[in-house]
């Protein structure tokens, strides 16, 4: 018997979380329905003669991703709180950061899964021409998802054992989402407007910088959120 390393433990925890989500599909389906509903509602409220699709779509996209992502983030620690399973994780000989990393990895797959369905739906509804910008757009999605998931996982862990977890999580996490959502929406707008890729680099650099800061800071702070 030898203790597992950080990445091996994180992989194990992520696999377990994804297996649970795969069995129940409750959070994924809820997030997906919320995303599609938001896209449809915005579509019917939209006056194409007043606002162009390229101006509206980035906002719709990131509002949708932000709120649908919160559903999955809340659930990631909900499964640990249900029968006190978090205690079993905490006494296991794995680094506390591995719990964060494992949860974050599973949440990343979750958020990317929702994005993979919602993004084509948005393109279809709003008729925005993505063209050759697809790879760059996917890059923005992934970079933004990493930042959102890092912050969301930290606050989901922090609020998991509170009575108002569902309310507290968005209240605490949303202000920290702003530095991620803002450059992501700006980069998306440039790409959907067919601007040269080089024009998005500044926003992508900001996104990458916030990703690095948030992932590192959240991993550092996470163990303190587990104290009873």
């Amino acid at each position, binding site marked *: *018997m*030898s*203790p*597992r390393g950080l990445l091996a*433990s994180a992989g*194990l925890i992520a696999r*377990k979380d994804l*297996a*649970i989500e795969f*069995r*129940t599909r409750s959070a994924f389906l809820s997030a997906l329905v919320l995303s599609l509903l938001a896209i449809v509602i915005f579509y019917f409220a939209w006056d194409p003669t007043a606002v162009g699709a390229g101006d509206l779509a980035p906002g719709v996209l990131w509002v949708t991703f932000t709120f649908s992502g919160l559903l999955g983030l809340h659930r990631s620690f909900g*499964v640990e709180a*249900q*029968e*006190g*399973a978090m*205690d*079993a*994780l*905490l*006494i*296991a*000989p*794995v*680094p506390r950061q591995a719990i964060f990393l494992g949860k974050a990895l599973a949440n990343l797959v979750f958020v990317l899964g929702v994005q993979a369905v919602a993004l084509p739906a948005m393109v279809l509804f709003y008729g925005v021409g993505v063209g050759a910008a697809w790879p760059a757009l996917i890059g923005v999605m992934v970079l933004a998802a990493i930042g959102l998931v890092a912050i969301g996982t930290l606050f989901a862990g922090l609020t998991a054992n509170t009575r108002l977890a569902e309310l507290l999580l968005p209240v605490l996490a949303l202000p920290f989402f702003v530095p991620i959502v803002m450059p992501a929406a700006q980069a998306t707008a440039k790409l959907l407007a067919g601007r040269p890729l080089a024009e998005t680099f500044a926003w992508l650099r900001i996104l990458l910088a916030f990703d690095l800061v948030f992932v590192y800071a959240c991993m550092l702070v996470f163990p303190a959120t587990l*104290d*009873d």
Partner: protein
Amino acid sequence: MDGVRCEVQAGECLALFGPNGAGKTTTLRLLAGLLTPTSGEARIAGLRLPAPTARQHLGLISHRTMLYEALTGRENVAFSARLYGLSDPDAAAERALRALRIADRADVPVRQLSRGMQQRVAIARAIVHGPDVLLADEPYTGLDEQGATALTALLRERRDAGAALVLVTHHLHEGLALATHAAIMRGGRFVRYEPAAGLDPAAYASTYRALVA
């Protein structure tokens, strides 16, 4: 908790008794490294908690199952075995499930099992890595007679094999049957702490009632 000092050696079992709110579960959570004491310390195998090397030696059974309801019993136990880095987690899970006589129901999602069967899976999860120190908080919760007998036999076997046990229970008879030491807690303190050998359960029950009244 105040002024609690105790030591449980290999092959010993400390049974903690006391009314609700006496501090039994808090003591256990401190020993598991789930709580950090404001002063003092808890050591497992000489290692200060909550170091991962100290936690390697621990097994925890609680009145809550600590299981994932969407996973099967086998998946839950094997997941725990993998967390502890066992070389053959599936075989270890099978052994633990057999020891608790739940192997035949191990491929059913935990939420479909009765409370007693869930508790058996929970115990299998706690012992799958063969812990040197077993902390048990009301482990008889939800178990039927057969399950309770299997648990007592298993805890005795673990103790006789050299594991140190700390058992929190309201059941004086079951606790004393396993204990090498017994303690009664009230208001976060040990009000009585003594070797259990030679203790008469009936007399001890009277003492207990007098002390916690």
